[in-house]
């Protein structure tokens, strides 16, 4: 376990020394300041009612959360896809692995380090953004912590997939595949919503299939639910088919069975990554 922690610490240190954390922090603060200023303008608009401000703020919060989840997903893919592959290409792995460290310890150390980075980024940026929104509009989503947990989980799921691909594929190839799958899953989620609205079993099956195979969009919908105030939920439910296919709406929280599936999916992907890396000739 200590060697897993050594590699995890090394992974975080590398992100810090390579100025990745600094660049992310600066850009994130800029985005938060700008969006918070935008939110603070909402109550000052002409003839706007507090209910309208709350509605607009809730929808814009979901959009901002989508942007952050996108940054997190793309960022974690870009960092995870080369993590093992480039260590092999450059020869860093050749120098480290003859030490008394299992390949699984190296892999899980990398995973842990990246997971910590994803979780800390999601927590800090999310809470800071929510605070900025609250300052400008007095609006807070119903359960920001749960929403941020789902956003972080989405990033960790995609990062784990990229890490698995990284054990066999070149950094570029693994990264592109992970990103394509991420967007395919997003479209699959929209297909699912449309299929449900029109009760079309084929489209529903395709949507469910994509949500099971790549759970990123499923987790994103888990996050959305905790960002929706009750009046928004009620209005959307009343709208019926009119809201079909809206990728920024979730009617219900994720069922426990789906959360269990995501946990099993994650374990399977990490198991496969370890199996694949252990059998690779370096």
């Amino acid at each position: 376990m200590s060697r897993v922690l050594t590699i995890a610490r090394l992974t975080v240190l590398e992100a810090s020394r390579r100025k990745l954390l600094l660049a992310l922090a600066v850009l994130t603060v800029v985005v938060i300041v700008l969006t918070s200023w935008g939110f603070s303008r909402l109550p000052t608009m002409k003839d706007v009612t507090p209910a309208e401000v709350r509605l607009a703020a809730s929808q814009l919060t979901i959009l901002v959360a989508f942007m952050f989840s996108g940054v997190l997903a793309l960022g974690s893919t870009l960092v995870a896809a080369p993590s093992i592959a480039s260590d092999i290409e450059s020869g860093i792995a050749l120098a480290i692995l003859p030490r008394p460290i299992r390949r699984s310890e190296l892999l899980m150390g990398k995973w842990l380090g990246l997971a910590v980075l994803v979780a800390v980024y999601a927590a800090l940026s999310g809470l800071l953004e929510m605070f900025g929104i609250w300052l400008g509009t007095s609006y807070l989503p119903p359960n920001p912590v749960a929403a941020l947990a789902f956003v972080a989980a989405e990033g960790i799921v995609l990062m784990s997939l990229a890490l698995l691909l990284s054990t066999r594929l070149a950094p570029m190839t693994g990264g592109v595949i992970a990103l394509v799958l991420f967007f395919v899953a997003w479209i699959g989620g929209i297909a699912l919503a449309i299929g449900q609205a029109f009760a079309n079993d084929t489209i529903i099956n395709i949507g469910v299939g994509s949500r099971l195979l790549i759970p990123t969009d499923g987790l994103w919908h888990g996050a959305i639910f905790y960002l929706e105030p009750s009046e928004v939920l009620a209005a959307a439910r009343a709208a019926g088919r009119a809201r079909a296919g809206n990728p920024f709406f979730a009617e219900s929280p994720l069922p426990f069975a789906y959360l269990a599936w995501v946990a099993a999916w994650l374990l399977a992907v990490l198991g496969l990554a370890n199996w694949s890396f252990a059998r690779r000739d370096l």
Partner: protein
Amino acid sequence: MEAADAASLAVHTQDLAKRYGKTVALSGLTMSVRRAEVFGFLGPNGAGKTTAVKLLVGLALPTAGEGWVLGAPIGDLSTRRHLGYLPELFRYQGWMKAREVLGLHCELSGMARSEWQKEIAIALDLVGLTDRADDKVEGFSKGMQQRLGLGVALLGRPELVLLDEPTSALDPVGRHDVREIIRQLKARGTAVFLNSHLLSEVEQVCDRLAVVDHGRVIATGTMAQILGQDGAVRVRVTGLSPVSRAGLQGYGNLEDEGEWLTFRGLAAERVPDLVGEIVRQGGRVYAVEPRHETLEDRFLQLLKDQQA
């Protein structure tokens, strides 16, 4: 060989083989490296030298055969604490300082934290990088990276050090330093497995060597054994007809260079007979000298024999 017998050796392999798809990288490698000896593993590019070392340190998995390192089956985790390895093509984390790279390897090898500082100082001193200890590795030249790699391989007083082409990026001073380090390692009882295609390097430091080609050992033994297997004599002679020259083939593998004839594989006691035969054939002998065979000659001859 049983595992118990293998324990007395630094390295022992039995029919170790590695195949990458259809390419055979190593076919049936059987060899032994004793403890506290410097063992040269010599072969042309693509002979399977790096593959053999990668199998020994667990970076690649054998497709057949067995191997033991310091008495444990290859890949054994706890044994790796006593191994030092310098890969042929490698890089360290460029964003780290040399001292940090060494610290990381101390940590990964399970060394007690109280020993790190001393071990790092010794390694830096040994490879001449004390002045650059706090510089980032990304600013290092190839030769300095190789020195650092050597320092990493020597951390924690390993019982076996595997060096894969350790001087490939070094200048003559660096090569000399590496030879001195290898001699020091031997003096303190460390076995050294030196993978190289640089014959002079092997000739100067190795106690024993194996010559490998196309993934198999074609000769093994001490330097004297390898060189002594094939005596050679050079004779300067005039007045021999082509037919007479051809008739001398029976005395050894003949190389005809005009006035100079070289007979390989000729035992010393047959030299007077050869001279007598040349004179009987009408030849005039000006010089007869034993040909001192260098490792390069022997190496090339072994490869030629192998191809034949």
